[in-house]
């Protein structure tokens, strides 16, 4: 009887120890940025991945929706005043709506679409890093992104700037023809602006 009890007790203890060991042994939750265990994701990788999603969605919307339905099939227009004109939102507006949604849900990162030649003057660079970054990606023809750090409102940020390239005819045509565009000579494949992603550093 006592033997049985002992066995039962040791089994229970063993099971508990096992669970405990699994708990302790599982990797510590990877700190996202710069954690000591080096298992976190670097700021660069983090913003690279975010940008990949943003840029892919943006290209898909421009080609599969705006390009196909507005430019090619001509069944609907894309317009800044899409509500009044019952039209498609512009790719830049889609991008901004997403960015505003994100900032209403998290303060872990922010992003926007800017340009040295903006149609909407609020999309001109404002901070030194934005100016540097946009100039850098334009010089490098979008081949590599720009990474930097800056202090804004007393907080430190990691700021990455990625080229926004004229990937489809509608990008070029619309921007070259727009009455508020400071440039009328954009060409396919050219850098038209940049996506700025900011991550607060702690």
């Amino acid at each position, binding site marked *: 009887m006592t033997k049985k009890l002992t066995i039962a007790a040791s089994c229970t203890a063993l099971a508990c120890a096992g669970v405990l060991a699994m708990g302790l042994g599982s990797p510590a939750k990877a700190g996202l940025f710069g954690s000591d265990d080096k298992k976190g994701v670097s700021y660069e990788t983090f913003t690279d991945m975010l940008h990949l999603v943003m840029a892919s969605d943006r290209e898909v919307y421009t080609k599969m929706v705006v390009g196909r339905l507005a430019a090619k099939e001509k069944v609907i227009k894309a317009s800044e005043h899409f*509500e009044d004109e019952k039209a498609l939102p512009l790719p830049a507006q889609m991008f901004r709506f997403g960015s*505003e949604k994100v900032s209403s849900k998290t303060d872990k990162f*922010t992003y926007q679409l800017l340009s040295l030649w903006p149609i909407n*003057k609020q999309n001109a660079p404002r901070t030194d890093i*934005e100016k540097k970054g946009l100039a850098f990606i334009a010089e490098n023809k979008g081949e590599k992104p720009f990474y930097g750090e800056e202090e*804004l*409102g*007393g907080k430190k*940020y990691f700021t990455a700037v990625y080229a926004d390239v004229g990937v489809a005819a509608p990008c070029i045509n619309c921007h070259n023809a727009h*009455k508020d565009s400071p440039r009328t000579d954009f060409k396919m494949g050219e850098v038209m602006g940049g996506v700025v992603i900011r991550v607060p550093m702690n």
Partner: protein
Amino acid sequence: MRNKILWLVWVTATLAGGVAVAAVMYYGGDLRSVFLIGKTTSGHHQIEMACDACHTDMFGGIDALQKGCVTCHGDELKAANDSHPRSKFVDPRNADRVAVLDARYCVTCHREHQPGITNAMAVTLPTDYCALCHQDVAKNRPSHEGLAFDTCGNSGCHNFHDNRALYEDFLEKRHGEPDFKEILLVALSNWTPPADQPKPARKALAALDADAPADRRGALKHTADWALSGHAAAGVNCSGCHQPRKRTRPDEWVEAPGAKVCATCHTAEAKTFTEGKHGMRQRDGLWVSRKDDFLGLFEDKGLPPMTPALARIPMQDDAHATALTCNTCHGAHKYDVKFAQIEACESCHADDHTKAFRMSPHNALVDREASGDLPKGSGVTCATCHMPKHLVRDDYGTEKIFVTHNQNDNLRPNEKMIRTVCADCHGLRFTIDALADPALIKNNFKGKPAHHVESIDWVENRMRERARRQQQ
């Protein structure tokens, strides 16, 4: 020593007594007005006794106030595509701007109870605040060179939040319109549902179909009025309003069904009613006292409906006590929309614009429509402009007409009226000029605008310039 103790007891008792009296005054509701630190703005004065509508938490600071603002105004701002949303200012790239003007919070610009510094639209900043961020506007808009920064909002050109009314492309598209259009009809007045849209299967009812029990019938006139009303035509019987819970409580009879009952069918109308000056006191969640708040000493008490006596604009002397509910304008049983369109307004409002209506060209159209001289939809009533009809589609594409009951909706700025109303009959240039002419508004648009809004000329200049550049 004994003196000291007595002093201590006295001071403590006085303090405790004071706090208790203040608490009773505050939580009791009726004496709350002594806590008002300054005259409330005309936007909020009606609900000033429901303190916690804005002061959502006594010790919550600015965030608690912000919560109050957003509870009532959040949806409205979203619908207006707010040009300066909070998201713009929580963005770190605008940190320097926030340091100048913390636009993350409503109260930065709209401080309540500050009558000395309150300007139009309840803005408590100096009226040239745009300059804080937009100093360089003339760089891209040479036409704006030298314009004073307190004129940005003139004629509805620019607004901090709602810029749906006017924008350059809109002016460009409509700059050449004549003062009067070819067809002079209020567009939605003759609306009928699309032929392929399924109609609700309801049988029209007549006086004999009335289902009120005999002992509840009341005056014969009630049944007669109902039988001629839209309710009867749409198959809504006595029980439809007087027995709102007929299925679960067949014996219940509601003598005077309130707005909640109206809202079960007229949902959008009832909702917008509580968003405007007429019905804002009846909005959900406005309390003068609550049972749970203070030892269960007081009852749950909301705000009674608005009356002209509380208004800050001129009202008819004999209407001061009239409580504003659905039936005030719509009269029970009869539901005469014609009465609600003009007479109902006149029975309370006594300002110049209202008093001038009967002599106005718009009213002449009402008369000519009534006499059969002009087709249906020619008349322009108070409601045509202040409670316009909207064509709405639900998520399944079903079309419906809805009459906004928020009389404020197209007055802030009044240029919002252009699309919803004026543009049906008038050209853009004429309309903007008229809406910017206070004397013309006062006499209810009798005559031609004496004011001219230049911005439409600037747009034309830019169009000409562009055409010239394109030719080169």
